[in-house]
């Protein structure tokens, strides 16, 4: 079933789920980057 065929409620729910997923992914990436920055020069050699 294509997204076009979904009823409005399912479409709205899908949009909310995508927004929530993107938000969580962004949060995880943010925490990772902040950790790398906070550790500074100590983390580089391990990569």
């Amino acid at each position, binding site marked *: 079933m294509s997204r076009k065929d979904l009823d409005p409620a399912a*479409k*709205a729910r899908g949009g*909310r789920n995508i927004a929530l997923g993107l938000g969580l992914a962004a949060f995880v990436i943010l925490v990772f*980057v*902040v950790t790398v920055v906070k550790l500074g020069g100590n983390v580089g050699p391990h990569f």
Partner: protein
Amino acid sequence: MARTTVLTPDEEATQEVRHARWQDYFQLMKPRVMSLVVFTALTGLLAARTPIHPLLGAVAVFCIAVGAGASGALNMWYDADIDAKMRRTRGRPVPAGLVKGEEAATLGVVLSILSVMLMGVAINWLAAGLLAFTIVFYAVVYTMWLKRWTAQNIVIGGLAGALPPAIGWAAATGHAPLNAWLMVLIIFLWTPPHFWALSLYIATDYAKAGVPMLPVVKGARETRKQVLLYSLILIPVCVAPVFTGLGGWLYLAVSGLGGLVFLTLAWRVFTSNAGDAADPRPADRDLYEVKDEAPAPATIDARSEGKKPLVGGAKNARNLFAFSILYLFALFAALLAEAVLNLPALELPL
């Protein structure tokens, strides 16, 4: 406590086909309030003039924005019954029936925890503690207690909106000295004349919702007096940063000249009859999302005491309300510009 949702038949019909989108959840976070919070927090962070990694600075401001949004969502959950009765707020997601109150509360709690924890782990725990205090103060002390209990609600509750510069400063330096609290004091003292000017021309809405705003409890005359008194205290405090090594010449010019205009407008409100009757026009559409029309001017004229044109009085209150926003923005923009351009701050002798 029971929550009521008041919808017109048209709105009920709309609910059948309108489903909550992610934008409705974003609206719960009061994005316009968030933008002002971000601006003042960023000013505090940069006015500290302490180097901070750009990413960590951005994360600090992000945490403050999310924390402000979280408290906004908690406010929208708890105040849904009040919001449903007021023209400027009844279109909000919860009273409009788009988002359940429980969802707003959950969003508020989750974002509060995330923003404070991230601030603590990524920046420092002083900034995180101040952020947590701000969220609790706004969502619990102001929203659940002060707002429905006392006419001094926005005076005391204004502390929550005033704290972001200190959080920004603490994020940059790890401590919060006098100058950080001076910025807090400016916003704290700015809040009463700002909100009371607004409440002078939408007092009927507050009365209908049972919110004990000053014009509703003490009357318009007392409110106009309090607006002038707070303005007289506010302006010297706004100029004070040039004596404490926070503001420079640019700030002195903005705070001094703007302060004179502020006092003039406050005096005009004091000598007008603003608030003696409802303003025939709705509150500013751009700022407050008014959805419908106000009563016809003839209704207002019938209640006039025949001293001064009622619209003129309301206009004075509107002018002060609008200028107060511009003044606060200009003050913090001047501090921000001086910090970014590394212009020297003044320490004028008293």
